[in-house]
């Protein structure tokens, strides 16, 4: 990429710039005519020039040229003699021409501005794409030094002004410069003197203003750097918020942010001062010219050396001169500004030794398996600080062997993993696979034939499934079927992408390389995912996530029908006397003792905020329903009862006491608040209480569950009243709340509730020993009976992993990473120190399964493994073991043979 913005823009937009230049030039004559016309109208029909005699006419639209006498003896050629019009007719005709010119000028402007806008956006699109493209080709060391939010700010915000400028880069000076010259020429033609005056002042502006602006640009540059750093710091605050809490560092961060903001503020303030001073100067100079025009032009007019029409035209024309001049100055300022922004961004985006483009070429064909041995010779790696990570390593490993790499932390095993995965380029020596040097292999070979997973895994914010299949998405393999409209959109996308130098690949196509995964279709892929998740011990966790997940009935009509079936089966099973007390199902005609008062009233799952727990007490419709049933006052009294007991019981307790954890519907700091509410309303009833107090006390009643709190506040009569209110609430539900609740219905799937709640359609009873566990076992049994486990597992795959995968535990992320490395069936799987937090037994179980799987992964052919173990004792599961110490390979061989020697291997095992 070019370091000069102008060259970058010119090299990509030559043709468009040329075209728009032509259009601009084309618009100039009408622009000139547009200025000349007022004078003709004033001097001609209005003041009567050429109409001195009665009944005089003038010819309109006459086209005639003066020509040399050898062409025509008359010295004039008349092409069209024009229409003869009287004074008024001539005025109308000329005014019409004026109107026409207004339209033509406006249309020219419209076309030019739209074209410029598109040109700018297109170039911006290209530039952004280029920048992101570059990030993916940066050497690893450069990326490590980059702060993610800073890079994001550069791509997103800092180059944004370029978009507006690029369209103007070449056109603006031509267009407004042309306008200015037109005006100047026009003024010159009218009066050389006045023209010279205008010219001198314009030149003065052109010299003085850029000088003043120098400092402005310097400040702008600093401001940009500071703002970028601020973005980086804000990103850091977000990323390290846990560290801020555990170190009580929040005030230090506040001070830091405050000082940065102060610097930015001061710079901005100075910028404003300077900017407005320049503006003032500009305006002043612009007003000086008309002053001179009035004085000098008036003098000429009075002396009769200039007609008044001319003077009016000059002044009218001059009115249009400051605008182009100002725009020219503005353009120049923006030019410098964006040039600085551009070159600053380019500095960050032009590291040495970027990855060649060929290495990331789109490769749609299958890639042949790797063959031969892995041969590492004389390998050395030096880190940023000059420390040796490994040195003089030489070894050979068959590609189909399962090798374990052992050693203490930072002994070198980790670095070898990174080299084998192509993440780190060796400082010296080389690593060959078969005949090829690993660092010469393109990514479409290494990225498909080698699998890698390290301890630190950053997942994309997407579903588990998307994160897993990420390793199969190398190229759009099967185009998507589009209908006519979509196909047109797609065509347009390709056209636009091409003209902006973007990728034309269709992100909506099917990218999954099913062949690489060893499956024939999407269905088999599902089965393969289940198999691999079982290998890495993640299938059960996905099943649990699936139970907690929600599904869209429209997309899975078959599944929801079977879940309703599971619900019925569970209900049957719960009729067994041993289980009967465990769950109280939701029954439209009965009060559910295990559910809250609110749940009993709504008898459905709230969608959105309108009927959520927090919003319930202030929901107008519910209040009307309650009022009609006389329940509003009773719930208020019930809330009073709860609050009285709780305040009495907890009043003496310090607010941080652990017993407060038992209190689910009130926070410790709410106790004094409720105390006040109670005192305030000691002698008032519902009718006299304030709206806020009403809501606060009712809120307590809404959350009340009798078996949980045992305050004897719900009698049979109250329950009957609540049941009646439930019916009234549902029957009279206004339309605008229709989407705010999904009612329980034994025959229908509730899209707003989780899968588990749908199967249960009831509440697990309070206080039954091992109740939840026994119910879950029963659900598990029924799920298996109906063969639903895989389908619910599938729902779990839709779980959103959160930013960076933070909604999963570290071990879950590592398991997912391992699954991702396995699903693409590479020839060589490299695993770098994962599962350190699992105990040895769990690690061994996963290892055994994975090693077995890998042995027959390619339809009988084995793939190799290189596993830097977190637990050295597990090495005996492998064919081969390497022991690293201080960056050197100190021992290698069969694990059982090594165990017999009293070498480094034995020492490691003893150390545990």
């Amino acid at each position, binding site marked *: 990429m070019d370091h000069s913005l102008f060259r970058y823009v010119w090299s990509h937009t030559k043709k468009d710039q040329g075209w728009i230049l032509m259009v601009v030039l084309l618009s100039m004559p009408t622009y000139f005519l547009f200025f000349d016309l007022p004078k003709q109208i004033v001097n001609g029909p209005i003041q009567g020039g050429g109409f001195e005699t009665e009944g005089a006419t003038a010819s309109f639209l006459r086209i005639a040229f003066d020509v040399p006498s050898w062409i025509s003896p008359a010295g004039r050629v008349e092409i069209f003699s024009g229409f003869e019009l009287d004074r008024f007719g001539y005025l109308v005709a000329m005014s019409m021409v004026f109107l026409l010119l207004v339209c033509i000028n406006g249309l020219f402007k419209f076309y030019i501005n739209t074209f410029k806008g598109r040109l700018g956006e297109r170039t911006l699109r290209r530039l952004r794409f280029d920048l992101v493209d570059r990030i993916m080709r940066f050497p690893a060391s450069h990326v490590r030094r980059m702060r993610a939010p800073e890079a994001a700010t550069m791509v997103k915000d800092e180059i944004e002004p370029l978009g507006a400028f690029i369209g103007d880069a070449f056109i603006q000076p031509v267009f407004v410069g042309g306008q200015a010259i037109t005006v100047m020429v026009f003024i010159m033609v009218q009066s050389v003197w006045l023209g010279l005056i205008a010219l001198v002042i314009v030149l003065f502006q052109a010299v003085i203003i850029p000088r003043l602006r120098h400092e402005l640009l310097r400040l702008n540059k600093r401001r940009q750097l500071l703002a970028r750093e601020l973005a980086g710091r804000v990103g850091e605050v977000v990323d390290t918020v846990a560290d801020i809490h555990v170190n009580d560092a929040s005030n230090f961060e506040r001070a830091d942010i405050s000082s940065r903001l102060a610097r930015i503020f001061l710079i901005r303030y100075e910028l404003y001062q300077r900017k407005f001073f320049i503006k003032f100067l500009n305006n002043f100079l612009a007003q000086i010219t008309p002053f001179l025009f009035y004085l000098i032009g008036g003098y000429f007019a009075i002396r009769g050396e200039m007609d008044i029409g001319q003077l009016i035209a000059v002044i009218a024309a001059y009115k249009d001169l400051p605008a182009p001049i100002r725009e020219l100055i503005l353009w120049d300022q923006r030019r410098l500004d964006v040039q600085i922004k551009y070159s600053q961004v380019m500095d960050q985006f032009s590291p040495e030794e970027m990855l060649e483009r060929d290495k990331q070429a789109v490769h749609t064909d299958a890639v042949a398996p790797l063959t031969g041995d892995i041969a590492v010779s004389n390998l050395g790696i030096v880190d940023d600080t000059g420390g040796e990570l490994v040195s003089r390593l030489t070894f050979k490993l068959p590609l189909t062997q399962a090798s374990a790499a052992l050693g203490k932390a930072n002994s070198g095993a980790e670095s070898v993993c990174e080299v084998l995965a192509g993440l780190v380029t060796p400082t010296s020596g080389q690593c060959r696979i078969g005949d090829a040097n690993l660092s010469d292999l393109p990514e479409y070979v290494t990225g498909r034939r080698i699998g890698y997973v390290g301890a630190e895994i950053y997942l994309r914010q997407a579903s588990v499934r998307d994160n897993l299949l990420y390793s199969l998405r190398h190229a759009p393999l099967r185009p998507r079927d589009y209908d006519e409209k979509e196909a047109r959109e797609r065509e347009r996308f390709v056209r636009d992408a091409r003209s902006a130098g973007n990728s034309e690949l269709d992100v909506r196509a099917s990218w999954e390389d099913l062949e690489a995964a060893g499956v024939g279709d999407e269905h088999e892929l599902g089965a393969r995912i289940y198999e691999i998740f079982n290998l890495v011990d993640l299938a059960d966790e996905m099943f649990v996530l699936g139970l907690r997940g929600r599904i869209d009935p429209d997309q899975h009509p078959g599944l929801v029908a079977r879940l309703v079936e599971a619900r019925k089966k569970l209900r049957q099973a719960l009729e067994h006397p041993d289980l009967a007390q465990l769950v109280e199902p939701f029954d439209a005609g009965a009060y559910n003792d295990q559910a809250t008062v609110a749940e009993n009233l709504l008898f459905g799952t709230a969608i959105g905020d309108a009927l959520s727990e927090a919003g319930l007490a202030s929901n107008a419709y519910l209040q009307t329903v309650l009022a009609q049933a006389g329940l509003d006052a009773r719930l208020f009294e019930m809330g009073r009862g709860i609050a009285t*007991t709780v305040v009495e019981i907890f009043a003496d307790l310090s607010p941080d006491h652990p017993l407060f954890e038992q209190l689910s519907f009130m926070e410790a700091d709410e106790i004094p608040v409720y105390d006040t509410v109670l005192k305030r309303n000691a002698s008032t009833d519902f009718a006299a209480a304030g709206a806020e107090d009403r809501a606060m006390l009712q809120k307590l009643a809404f959350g009340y569950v009798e078996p949980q709190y045992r305050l004897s506040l719900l009698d049979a009569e109250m329950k009957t009243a609540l049941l009646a209110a439930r019916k009234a609430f549902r029957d009279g539900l206004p339309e605008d709340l229709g989407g705010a609740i999904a009612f329980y219905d034994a025959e229908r799937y509730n899209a707003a509730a989780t899968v588990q709640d749908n199967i249960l359609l009831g509440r697990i009873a309070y206080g039954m020993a091992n109740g939840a566990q026994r119910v879950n076992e029963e659900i598990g049994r029924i799920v298996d009976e109906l063969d639903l486990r895989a389908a619910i597992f599938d729902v779990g795959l839709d779980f959103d992993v959160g930013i960076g995968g933070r909604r999963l535990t570290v071990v879950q992320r590592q398991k997912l990473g391992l699954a991702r490395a396995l699903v693409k069936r590479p020839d060589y799987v490299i695993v770098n120190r994962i599962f350190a937090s699992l105990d040895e037994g769990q690690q061994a179980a996963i290892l055994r399964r994975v090693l077995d799987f890998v042995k027959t992964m390619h339809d009988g052919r084995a793939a190799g493994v290189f596993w830097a173990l977190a637990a050295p004792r597990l090495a005996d599961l492998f064919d081969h073991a390497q022991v690293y110490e201080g960056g050197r390979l100190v021992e290698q061989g069969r694990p059982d043979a090594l165990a017999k020697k009293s070498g480094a291997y034995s020492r490691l095992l003893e150390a545990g």
Partner: protein
Amino acid sequence: MSLEDEVEVLRSIPLFANLAPAKLKLLGFTSERVVFSRGQELCRQGEVGDAAYVIIEGSADIVVDTPGGELSVAQVERNSIVGEIAILCDVPRTATVRALSELQTLKITKDRFLSLTTEFPEVAVEVMRVLAQRLAATTAELTDVRKQLQERDG
């Protein structure tokens, strides 16, 4: 069975008998009601326990493992507490408790009970007093037994 009733039951247990009503209410309110069905075990001999159970309704069998199999040593009913040693110190359960009928209990966990004693030292003093009485009684019994043994041997 409401909180008020639970407080009554708690009051009838010597360990808690002299606690102020408000404290008993707090203990009752923050404790979980657990229902065991016939045959379910509240705790098992040898396991580490973390809770005591106040029996509110129903009856339970206390059994100990002997070389000759299980031996029922006692039955407990309403207004008694089982496993209370577990909420004071870490010792394995000395017996297995099994519900003989549907059994309503109030589960008092060690954490909750200890946090109550740290907040209100008078609770601790009260418990100490009860334990000291028990110790005195046990010591007296021991002296008695020793005397009997000596008499028999002598």
